[in-house]
C-alpha cells in the first residue's frame, strides 16, 4: 500500500461522527465576513455600509493576483465594516451583513452548465469569482494553483481525500454523499491539464469511501483511485505526492515543479459546484466532535455564520468545554471564544470536557530520538529545539529547520512532552527575519 517514511499513528476517533450525514444549518440573523480567509493579500471591500447585497455577490474583491474573493452567503444589508476577531486570534477587517432571510441570489445563480462548452480561461475565471481556496486547511487561492507556468507539464492531479487528522469526518462524508461531484469536478480540472491523470487518494481507514469512488470513476479513462496507508500526516501535500508518485519536493518548491497538482476533495466539489452548477463557495462542511458536545455532527454551514449559532443547531454542549479547537487536534487552532465567524478554513470544531494536555509533565529531553523517527521530513527535531531555545539561527538553518512543515508529529511522539512544534512555528518567522536583517547588514557593509 502507498505511504511515506516516518510519521505517527494518533488516535482515530472518527467513529464519533463518521456515520452522521451532512445536515444543512439555517444561517442566522447576522453574518460576518473577514477579508482575510486565505493565504495572500487581504481582499478589498467593494460594498458600503447600508448597501443591499445578494446571495453569491462578491463583497470583498481579490486585491492583486495573489488573493481571493469574499462572497456574501446570504441576501441582506451591510450593517458595518469593522475589525472582528477571527479564529486565528487576529482582528481582521470584516463586512457585517444583516440577513433578510430571503436568499435572493445574483443572476445566473444555480444555472446548470457543461464545462466542455467553456474555455479554460472561462473556467479559471469562474473559480476565481467563486472565491474558491484550498479547503484542506491552507486556503491557498485555487485559481492560482490552476494556472501554473506550463499546464502541459502537469501529469498528475491528486485529489486529497486522506483526511489524516483524528476526529475529522467532513471530507469522508463528502466522499460518501457527493461521490459524483468529486469525479465530475476532477474531470473539469483535468480539462485544464491535457496531459494529466487524475488520482483520488483515500486512506485505508475509509475503505467504503474508496470503494464508492473507485466504482464512480471506473468509466472515466483518465481518473483512478489510490488507497493510502492510514498514517499521520498522509494528507500533507509533500507526503501525499511522495506516496502516490514517488516524487519529492522541498519547502522552496510547489507541487507544479514536480508536475503535480493537489486539491482537497471539498475544493474539487466547490469547483464542480461553481463551474457546472453556478453555485460559488458559500458554505463550509464542518465536523463537530469531542466529548463536550451533546451530539456530534457533520454540518453544511454558510460561511460567515457565528460559531454559537452553529452549536445551537446541534443542541449545544453537554458540559462547559475546557478546550476547543478549530480544525483537527494535530494542526488545528485553539480557540477561547465562540463569538467568531465560520470561515473558509473552519474544517471542524472540537470541544472537550478536559484538556488532555493540562496534566502532562515536561522533563528534560532524554535524546531518545522518537521525534527523529516521527519526522516525515527527516529532520532532527530535538536538535532544532535546542537551537531554537537560544535563538541560534545559524544552527537552525544548518539543521534544515526551515524545511519543517509544522505537522506536530514530533511533539506528539515526545515522551518528555516538550513543546517542539510551537518553537518551530516561532523559528520559521524569526529565522526569516534574521536572514533579512543579515542581508541588509551585508549590503550596508
Amino acid at each position, binding site marked *: 500500500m502507498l505511504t511515506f517514511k516516518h510519521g505517527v499513528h494518533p488516535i482515530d476517533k472518527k467513529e464519533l461522527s463518521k456515520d452522521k450525514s451532512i445536515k444543512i444549518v439555517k444561517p442566522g440573523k447576522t453574518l460576518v465576513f473577514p477579508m482575510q480567509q486565505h493565504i495572500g493579500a487581504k481582499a478589498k471591500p467593494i460594498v458600503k455600509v447600508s448597501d443591499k447585497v445578494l446571495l453569491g455577490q462578491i463583497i470583498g474583491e481579490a486585491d492583486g493576483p495573489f488573493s481571493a474573493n469574499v462572497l456574501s452567503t446570504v441576501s441582506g444589508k451591510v450593517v458595518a465594516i469593522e475589525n472582528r476577531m477571527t479564529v486565528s486570534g487576529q482582528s481582521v477587517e470584516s463586512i457585517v451583513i444583516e440577513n433578510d432571510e430571503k436568499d435572493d441570489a445574483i443572476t445566473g445563480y444555480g444555472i446548470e452548465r457543461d464545462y466542455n462548452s467553456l474555455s479554460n480561461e472561462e473556467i479559471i475565471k469562474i473559480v476565481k469569482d467563486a472565491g474558491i481556496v484550498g479547503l484542506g486547511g491552507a486556503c491557498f487561492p485555487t485559481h492560482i494553483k490552476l494556472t501554473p507556468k506550463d499546464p502541459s507539464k502537469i501529469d498528475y492531479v491528486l485529489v486529497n481525500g486522506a483526511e489524516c487528522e483524528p476526529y475529522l469526518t467532513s471530507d469522508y462524508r463528502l466522499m460518501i454523499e457527493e461521490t459524483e461531484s468529486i469525479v465530475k469536478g476532477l474531470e473539469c480540472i483535468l480539462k485544464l491539464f491535457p496531459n494529466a491523470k487524475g488520482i483520488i487518494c483515500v486512506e485505508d481507514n475509509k475503505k467504503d469511501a474508496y470503494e464508492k469512488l473507485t466504482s464512480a470513476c471506473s468509466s472515466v479513462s483518465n481518473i483512478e483511485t489510490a488507497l493510502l496507508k492510514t498514517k499521520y500526516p498522509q494528507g500533507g501535500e509533500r507526503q501525499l505526492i511522495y506516496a502516490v508518485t514517488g516524487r519529492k519536493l522541498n519547502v522552496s518548491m510547489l507541487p507544479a515543479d514536480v508536475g503535480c497538482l493537489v486539491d482537497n476533495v471539498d475544493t474539487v466539489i466547490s469547483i464542480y459546484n461553481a463551474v457546472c452548477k453556478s453555485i460559488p463557495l458559500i458554505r463550509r462542511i464542518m465536523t463537530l466532535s469531542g466529548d463536550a458536545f451533546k451530539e456530534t455532527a457533520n454540518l453544511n454551514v454558510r460561511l460567515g455564520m457565528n460559531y454559537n449559532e452553529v452549536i445551537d443547531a446541534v443542541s449545544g454542549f453537554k458540559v462547559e468545554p475546557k478546550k476547543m479547537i478549530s480544525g483537527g487536534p494535530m494542526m488545528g487552532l485553539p480557540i477561547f471564544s465562540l463569538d467568531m465567524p465560520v470561515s473558509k478554513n473552519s474544517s471542524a470544531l472540537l470541544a472537550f470536557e478536559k484538556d488532555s*494536555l493540562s496534566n502532562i509533565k515536561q522533563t528534560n529531553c532524554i535524546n531518545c530520538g522518537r521525534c527523529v523517527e516521527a519526522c516525515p521530513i*527527516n529532520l532532527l527535531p*530535538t536538535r532544532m529545539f535546542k537551537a531554537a531555545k537560544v535563538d541560534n539561527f545559524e544552527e537552525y538553518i544548518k539543521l534544515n529547520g526551515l524545511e519543517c512543515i509544522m505537522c506536530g508529529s514530533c511533539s506528539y511522539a515526545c515522551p518528555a512532552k516538550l*513543546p517542539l512544534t510551537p518553537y518551530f512555528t516561532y523559528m520559521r518567522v524569526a529565522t526569516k527575519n534574521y536572514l533579512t536583517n543579515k542581508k541588509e547588514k551585508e549590503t550596508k557593509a
Partner: protein
Amino acid sequence: MEQNINVQSSPHIRDGITTNLIMLDVIIALLPATIWGILRFGINALIVVVVSIITAIFSETIFNIILKRQNTINDLSCIVTGLILALNMPPNIPIFIPIVGVIFAIVVAKMLFGGLGQNFINPALAGRCFCHISFAAFMNNFTSEMSVDVYTSATPLAILKEGQEINLLDLIFGYIPGTIGEISVVCLLLGAIYLIAKKVIDIKIPITYIVTCIVFIMLFSNKTTNTNYILGELFSGGLIFGAFFMATDYVTAPITPLGKILYGILLGVLTGIFRLYGKTTESISYVILISNLLVPLIESLTIPNAFGREGK
C-alpha cells in the same frame, strides 16, 4: 467560560509514552539479570543492588534540595543509573564502594551538567570507571565466599587471554565469576528482547557494535577458526550488557540513523583493539566512555538530508 479555556498551541493530543515509562521499561528489562545475580551470589548482591538504588535516589534528592530545584527522581532515571552501576559491581564488594560510585555517577557525571539528558557521558559507566581507578583491587576481586560453589577468581576473558578453553554453556547461563549483572547472557538477552519489542531501544547500535567487534577479533587475532574462543569473546566481558544496555543509553548516543551505525562500528573497533592489544580485560566501560565523547562529532557529521533535499 472564556476564563477557563486552555489555548496551548497545537498539537493538542500526545502519545501516551512518557520519560518515566521508558525508564520503567529499562528497569523491567534489567530485572532478569538482577534476579539471576542475586540468586547466584546471595544476600551480598541484594545488598549492593538495594544500597546503590537508595544512594542514587538520595543523592539526586539532596542535590536538588541544595540547588532549590524541583525534585527529579520521579523520572526514574536515577534508579536506572543506580541499578546499572550495582550490576557492574563484583558481588562481595565492600559496600562503601558502590555508594561512592553512585554518588560520583549521579552528582558529578549527571547532575552537575544539568541533570537528565544533559550529561555527555554515561553516568553509570563514569561511576564504574571511577571505582575501577580508585579501588582496583576490590573491583577485580571476583571470588565469592557467599556461594556454595567455589569459583576461581579468573574471569572468562582472563582465561581466554591465556589461551585456554572455556565452558561456553556456563558462560551463557551465567555460572561464571563476574559482576552481579553481567554473568548471564540469557537473562540479559531476555531484557534486550523486551526493550526491542517495546521499541525502547533501536537495534542499530547493539548489532553494529557486536558484529564489528566480533569481525575485528576474527580478522586480527590468530584464532579466527577457534569457535570456542570467538563465542567466548562474544558472551563474556560484558559485551552483551554493554551493547544492549549501556551503548544504547539515549543521552550519550547519537540520534541520527547513520550516526548510530558509525557509533556502533567505533565501539566495536575500539573494543577489539582493547581486547586484543590492551592490558586490561574489562574494557567495555572505557570504550563506551571514549565513544561518548565523540558523539557530538559523529552527530554533526551525520545530519540527515531533509526530505526533498537529497543529494544537495
